């Protein structure tokens, strides 16, 4: 199990959070309860199974929604 903190360029609209939350929750290998989109810090925190999904796939799902990813930090949960 891995824990990722994904730093986004910016989160400026409130519905961005819902969009990202729903999109990330819908991916395979994600623990749905762990998805936390933080408006104040423009960050997404998520626990994921690295054998089922790569951090790059999570980043891509977020970028596809129109939110550029600045950097990601992954560590063991």
């Amino acid at each position, binding site marked *: 199990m891995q824990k990722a903190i994904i730093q986004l360029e910016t989160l*400026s*609209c409130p519905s961005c959070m*819902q969009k990202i939350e*729903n999109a990330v929750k819908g991916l395979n290998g994600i623990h749905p309860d762990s998805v936390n989109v933080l408006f*104040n810090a423009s960050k997404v*925190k998520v626990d994921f199974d690295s054998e089922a999904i790569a951090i790059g796939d999570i980043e891509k799902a977020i970028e*596809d929604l129109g939110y550029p990813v600045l950097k990601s930090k992954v560590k063991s949960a």
Partner: protein
Amino acid sequence: MQSYIFRKKNQITLISGILILSGLFSHFALENATLFTWSFIIASVFGGAPIAIQAYQALKVKVISIDVLVTIAVIGAFLIQNYEESAIVTFLFLFGSFLEQRTLNKTRSAIKELTEMAPESALKQMENGEFEEVEVDEVDEGDILLVKTGAKVPVDGTVLTGKGHINEASITGESVPVSKTVDSEVFAGTILENGTIQIRADRVGEDTTFGRIIELVEEAQDSKSEAERFIDRFSKYYTPAVLILSLMIGLFSRDIELAITILVLGCPGALVIGVPVSNVAGIGNGARNGVLLKGSEVINDFSKVDTIVFDKTGTLTVGNPEVAEIVFYGANREEVLGYLASVERESDHPLAKAVLQDIGGTTFSTVEETEVVKGGGIVAKVKGHRIAVGNVALMEKENVALNKNVQRDVERFEQNGNSLVLTAVDGELKVLMGIRDQIRPGVKQDLQKLKKLGVKNLVVLSGDNQGTVDLVARELGLTEAHGHMLPEGKSAYIEKMQAEGQIVAFVGDGVNDSPSLALANVGIAMGNGTDVAIETSDVVLMNSDFSRLPHALGLTKSTASNMKQNIFIAVGVVLVLLASVLFSEWMNMSIGMLVHEASILAVILNGMRLLRFRLRGKNQND
């Protein structure tokens, strides 16, 4: 294609604006209706594309977002051939988003600046004795590092050689440089302004004080207050509700223009952004000024505090007590002082340190059967003698007779504001020491500022004797003073005040008083880097700087009031817009979008004022 459009969003906004301007120019200057219409059609399609894609993405993940509302409104306007409205609304929406991003990033910058102050490299001594530049991650505890003028100290460490002045603003918020020589402690993230020093790394990476501060500030940013969680839940249902309302109005009134205007006016932007923006700016200001506020809920609670309870030693006083008065009873002074010093060496109590410092060089003996009496002192055996060192209560417990002379001395010492240390050998009193601590400079003025900020009760609770705490209370103008308090007594007293309806903050050094820090509505630690202080408390005053306390209270009051202002602006704007659409002729989609975007910017700019908050006299922003 989709990501290309997202990347070029700002250019699309600019082109959309130029097309609108050229349309207006064609209309007013050239009087060319075809050019006018086509400019607005192209601007609508061009500007609408990124919004429509975002709307599509939102619907794909089952979210009815603002983009969905705006896209439906723009398509509606386009279908009824109101191209001016569709073009202007898309442009204003894109331009508004651009400005929101810029200003929000600025608001978050206080915290970003702090994290960017983290050192990245260090000059580490290698096996050949030479210093080489390495990544800070490659530094381990015990490594020897060289810090040159102008460089950042990469770790928490101790100066081995050299001297210089260090700017510790990143830790304490205080930018006056502090002199450092051999054996001084230095902190990661601070800057050596002059001189060159060699240091030994004591704590590295996330274990440094600076690392912990960053972690705490980031966690504070992440936390949500009850109000924020409510607004999040509210917005989840609010946007779909606006869509349904608009559909119903469209169906019943058959007025598509009115229906799509409602869609635009109902966007909840300012309401949802207002509260977090105030919080993040408040936390950012605190982080810059040596005040760690652990989250939005703390801001809310602290702003309502009406009673502040202080621990005495290390909080109201500097925490460096010294022996001020001493009386011996009987002969063999040197021998008794030797026993006393041997016993006190077993303790890490601040009073024991003062006693040892005063005695200086002496012969230490082996101490056996040491027993620590909670709230009393220590009893131990030295060279076969039973030595009791502690307060009057301990002497009573040990059945040590205190004759009238001694009682007079005790009374006098207490009246002079001394903490008492009595020493008995085999049940006979031999020494009475009076130990005094200095009141922190400036505390009196800081306490007056707290009163001006609306704190009604200022209380000191101390394990010290009543005479000493009364003296401190008189000198500082506190409302209550209670001595002879054990940690559990302090927390019971806090519980009692809370039961009486007071909202209580407890200020302590966090070592003995973690129960009180945890129990109070707001626990405030004088954080000189101790783990317990930082972990248990809600607010940390870095470097134990008492003057940060009024700033912290003023800041939380301003932040709480700023949040209310933002909610008022947001709700007020929606109500005015809805009233205008129903009862006036002048409201349309474009004006609605303009006012909507302006209200979002207004709440962000209002929140940003907190970044410049300084306490001046009374609670006010500058």
